[in-house]
């Protein structure tokens, strides 16, 4: 047992019960169905913008080249234009590869002591693979949900649904992204509790989003394949939200409200959590700066004007006294013997 994940798990279970029981109280449906989602969205957008602006106020005076390749230098030395870009083009490519394929994570290695005291670094791609699956399936699931928020539904969504459900298992057809999301979240959680080093550095704020996302995926799958909801009724409700004419549809069921509440909590929690890496990735100095350390002069923006007293001025001021005291000076009053003391010894 570990306090970090127990607390997170308990928090998610409490949230579940809160919504599950709460909607049955008078006014519960309006509270969990209308007030909380709107509030969550406002917190999400304002919190997100605020956080990014806060980051943008931190000066990044110098380039931070955590480079994995040769910097651009002499023309006959081959440079790594994506890993160590010297211009905007390279930075954009690097950023796209980072966002779309989690490229930095691909370099993940496992550090182990082998045979007692031999340190070894090993190829470790599982974290990258499951993170990639996680992010992509989450994105696809999210994108597919646009069918509840648009009318008419854009045609590209139907194409995506066809692709996602191409295995045509059961009815309603199994959507692969949902299963992949649940599997990937499970892997990311197991990784945190099964690898001792990772467990040691994992905090409640690492587990909580995992449990919450697990809860969201779980309630979604539960509704789609098992307990069933009236999809048309659910869409009538969500369309009410996005056309700013909210109304409650009867008989959508508690699980739907739990699902909605989990999503609202995730949205509201987002700007204050590590999930902000969604915006943060674009603000990472190691990813968004071209390595121009040697080409351009970068001046520290918070350098304040310093009153300078050069050695020459100092000597001009104290030359007489220095000579009296026998200290060496650079410019003699009568140009003689600056080196004499040394010669004598």
């Amino acid at each position, binding site marked *: 047992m570990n306090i970090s994940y127990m607390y997170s798990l308990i928090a998610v279970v409490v949230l579940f019960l809160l919504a599950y029981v709460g909607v049955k109280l008078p006014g519960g449906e309006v509270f969990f169905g209308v007030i909380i989602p709107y509030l969550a*969205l406002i917190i*999400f*957008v304002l919190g*997100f*913008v605020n956080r*990014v*602006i806060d980051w*943008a*106020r*931190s*000066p*990044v005076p110098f380039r931070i080249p955590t480079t994995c390749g040769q910097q651009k230098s002499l023309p006959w030395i081959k440079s790594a234009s994506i890993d160590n870009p010297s211009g905007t083009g390279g930075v954009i490519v690097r950023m796209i590869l980072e966002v779309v394929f989690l490229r930095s994570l691909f370099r993940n290695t496992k550090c182990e002591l082998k045979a007692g005291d031999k340190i070894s670094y090993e190829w470790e791609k599982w974290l990258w693979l499951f993170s990639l699956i996680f992010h992509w399936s989450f994105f696809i699931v999210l994108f597919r949900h*646009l*069918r509840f*928020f*648009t*009318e*008419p*539904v854009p045609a590209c*969504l*139907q194409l995506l*649904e*066809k692709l996602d459900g191409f295995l*045509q298992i*059961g*009815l*309603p057809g199994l959507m692969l992204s949902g299963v992949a999301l649940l599997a990937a979240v499970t892997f990311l959680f197991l990784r945190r509790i099964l690898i001792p080093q990772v467990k040691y550095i994992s905090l409640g704020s690492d587990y909580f989003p995992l449990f919450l996302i697990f809860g969201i995926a779980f309630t979604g799958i539960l509704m789609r394949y098992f307990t*069933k*909801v*009236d*999809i*048309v009724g659910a*869409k*009538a409700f969500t*369309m009410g939200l*996005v*056309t*700013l004419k909210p109304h409650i549809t009867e*008989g959508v069921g508690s699980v739907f409200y739990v699902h909605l509440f989990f999503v609202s909590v995730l949205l509201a929690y987002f700007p204050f959590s590590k999930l902000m890496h969604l*915006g943060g990735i*674009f*603000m990472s100095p190691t990813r968004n700066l071209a390595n121009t350390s040697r080409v351009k002069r970068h001046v520290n*923006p*918070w350098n304040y004007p310093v009153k300078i007293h050069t050695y020459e001025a100092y000597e001009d001021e104290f030359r007489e006294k220095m000579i009296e005291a026998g200290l060496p000076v650079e410019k003699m009053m009568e140009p003689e013997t600056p080196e004499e003391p040394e010669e004598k010894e």
Partner: protein
Amino acid sequence: MPNNKKMYDKGKVVAGLCIFVVLITFPFWFNLGKAAPVPEPKLSDKAKAAKECVMPKAYMKAEHMQILNEWRDTVVRDAKRIYTNPSGKKFNMSLSNTCLDCHTEKAEFCDACHNYASVTPYCWDCHIDPKEAK
């Protein structure tokens, strides 16, 4: 740290945030000024006469695909074609010959809902709408 409120790369950051806000609020402006009426699946005269579906309405609404799945498997795998519902009524387990026999107006019934919920059952690649076939 200096206590300044200056934003660095302001142009880029603000542009990025604008894109973010526009994307997030996509459903709000996409549906602006559009009426999004909830579809009312229209019952054909034949269905009206029958009064009842295979299962109670609330069940049909959410789980009709499950019934179709069950029917499909039973017919194709077990070669059984007769389904008895809980109230003892017997049905020939067939998509085109039973469901669409009552719900003759596929476009105004099945499709009305499906378009709204963005589901495109692939059944019609093979199965026919008897009305269209004629």
